[in-house]
């Protein structure tokens, strides 16, 4: 933009219409965004996750006995789908899976109509994974059911951020379930790679700073716009991977989301040169940092096989924490009240 087309300075301060307050979530059991949870709610979920994890499976499965939960998946998933399903079943709920490739969605049924159909079939909550950002908000508005966001497009993946938090706490603050604004003070979490297309990055960057952590975003400009630093407080962009590593207690690696690149050209050799987490980089710059990854990992691309399997890797622990967190989230969705007639 040249000088002649620059914005002229505003001459006066004018009153303008303000955006209306959000009506979401319509259902108090929903978890659409990490922003739906204040720190008390986060603490409650962490506490319940631990309690449920330690509970006798034979009493735990009375909590949501025969309640009906639908898993509605418009994208493929291994970890999220299986752990939500195991979590719901551990509490005694009946689950049913609807996936876009083997349902009437293929015939053109809309998200609204699919949701209303599941509700008519008796679903009391819907766990939704969708390739469009914002889809869980639409589903919640149209069905009024508790909706759990299991990942929407490039937007959010709130249960992933919660399980990531639980993983970090287990290492950095063992025994802590009650979190506050200082719990992660002094902790720097670097998120590396395809931030632009990552719902995991967004949920983490909106959650962790509220507990006192500093979030550094690291990646090339095509995958990390400068405006990302404005997404919320406590977020900064650091393009130099090794400089970021030196400041980090936690480093979270992300996969390049080929399915969402939409024309963005990435030179993979250059990318690996600058951003691949290798054993050498890790031992030189962050020998004590916790290495995390939401999966699926691509060995030899964003990180080497040695790092994935190495001493600092918490990748499989994250998966295990996922089941505990999702039990707590599913319990909350259905009102957290054990059914009557409980043994």
């Amino acid at each position, binding site marked *: 933009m040249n000088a002649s087309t620059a914005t*002229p300075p505003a001459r006066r301060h*004018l009153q303008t219409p303000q*955006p209306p307050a959000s009506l979401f979530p319509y259902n108090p059991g929903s978890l659409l965004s990490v922003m739906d949870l204040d720190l008390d709610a986060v603490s409650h979920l962490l506490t319940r996750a631990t309690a449920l994890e330690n509970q006798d499976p034979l009493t735990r499965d009375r909590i949501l006995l025969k309640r009906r939960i639908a898993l509605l998946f418009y994208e493929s998933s291994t970890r999220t789908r299986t752990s939500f399903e195991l979590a719901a079943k551990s509490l005694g709920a009946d689950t049913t899976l609807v996936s876009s490739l083997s349902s009437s969605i293929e015939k053109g049924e809309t998200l609204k109509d699919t949701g209303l159909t599941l509700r008519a079939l008796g679903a009391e909550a819907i766990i939704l994974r969708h390739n469009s*950002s914002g889809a869980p908000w639409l589903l919640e508005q149209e069905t009024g059911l508790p909706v759990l966001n299991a990942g929407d497009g490039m937007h959010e993946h709130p249960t992933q951020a919660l399980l990531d938090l639980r993983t970090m706490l287990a290492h950095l603050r063992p025994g802590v379930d009650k979190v506050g604004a200082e719990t992660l003070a002094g902790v720097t979490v670097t998120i590396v790679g395809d931030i632009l297309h990552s719902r995991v990055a967004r949920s983490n960057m909106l959650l962790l700073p509220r507990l006192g952590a500093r979030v550094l975003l690291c990646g090339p400009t095509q995958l990390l716009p400068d*405006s990302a630093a404005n*997404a919320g407080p406590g977020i900064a962009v650091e393009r130099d991977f090794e400089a970021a590593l030196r400041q980090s207690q936690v480093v979270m690696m992300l996969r390049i989301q080929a399915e969402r690149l939409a024309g963005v050209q990435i030179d993979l050799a250059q990318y690996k040169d600058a951003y691949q987490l290798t054993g050498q980089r890790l031992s030189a710059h962050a020998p004590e940092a916790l290495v995390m990854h939401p999966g699926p990992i691509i060995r030899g691309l964003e990180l080497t096989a040695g790092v994935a399997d190495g001493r600092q890797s918490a990748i499989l622990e994250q998966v295990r924490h996922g089941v505990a967190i999702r039990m707590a989230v599913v319990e909350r969705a259905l009102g957290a009240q054990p059914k009557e007639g409980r043994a």
Partner: protein
Amino acid sequence: MSSVLIRNGHLIDPAAGVDAAKDILLKDGRVAEIAGAGKIKAGHEAGSDVQVLDASGLTVAPGLIDIHVHLREPGQGHKETIATGTAAAAAGGFTAVAAMPNTTPVNDSPEITRWMLSPERGACVRVYPIGAATRGSKGEQINDFAALKAAGAVAVTDDGHPILKDGIMRETLAAAARVGLSVIQHAEDTRMTQGASMNAGPMAFKLGLRGMPVEAESSLVERDIRLVTELRDARVHLHVAHTSTAAAIAAVRQARRNGLRVTCEVAPHHFLLTEEHVGLYNTNAKMNPPLRSAADRDAMIEAILDGVVDAIATDHAPHAVHEKEVEFEHAPNGITGLETALGLCLRWLHKEWKLPLGRVLSLLSAQPAALLGLKGRGTLAVGSFADVVVFDPKAEWTYHAKETHSKAHNTPFDGWTMQGRVRWTISEGRIAYAAKDPQ
């Protein structure tokens, strides 16, 4: 044809420089006489079949003119028809609307233009078709503008399919100038907006949506102005549709200083709302160009107040309810606007930001009429078309989308407070709208 006598109203006719209490007599579709309040008596010169409207306490003004609406016919009657769209126009105080050619099929021929103008369409206010600039709006082959004009088209555009090729745009500007038509450009370099559904910036990042950069608009406006400059032909008229960015406004401002015939319009949503109003994926806040940053919105207000903007136009874009009840990125662009424009302009431009009433009305009638050369419209001088809006300038009311005359409900202004309520809309001497429950 019967006569209508509007008595004791306060006439504001910016083009004629009138701002005073007047009686006004309409006869045979034209303004027959204007005289001091209480001076024209029914039954004498007015004739015995005169219908008398008491406009005491009300403002009488030239009927409003919207040079950017989508009436959806032919081909998309499930969204809107010419009958329902013009009914909404009349309810909003509009007596003339210019209809965009992105219909099915595209209005790129005299036959379709004439079809739209046929009395069988049931229009209740004047419709001015805008012809497509190129065959099928594909940006390749320029249409016969003389034939389109002869059939009734008042301008040419490819609207939502902006002409990207320099050569085609240059030829469009030159060919339109030869027959005395304006070229309207929806300025969007679509190579920069693939898959995008809102303004580019921190809000789009946060919502995980692909963004349209402001440069997609401003670079095309700058390109078009460069082409106008190079053509060196005073007849060339470029009109920039729904301007939404400070950079595009700045380019228009500069072009005008350079003496070029470049005009622009701004839609109410672009001077009132920002990308924050998208909220959590409200598809009724999705349109193209998208809601922009607060700085861009403020630049629209400034440009209206300081006179760079030539017209307020609504970009009335009706869609069926089910079409908007989908994932944000899949929802069609556009919001309705005909019934809310006057109420929002009076509430915000006039009451809040102190733009004189005459200037607000001029932006909604005299200036758009002059811009497209609509003869006899936009003024109530004796002999003009009897296109009149009579409204209560003080009335505050709440807009309810479910009470609309349009087929569509897709508005972000549902439940908003409006200022100034239309009592009567008169199109060529015929009452096209009368409020049911005048307070």
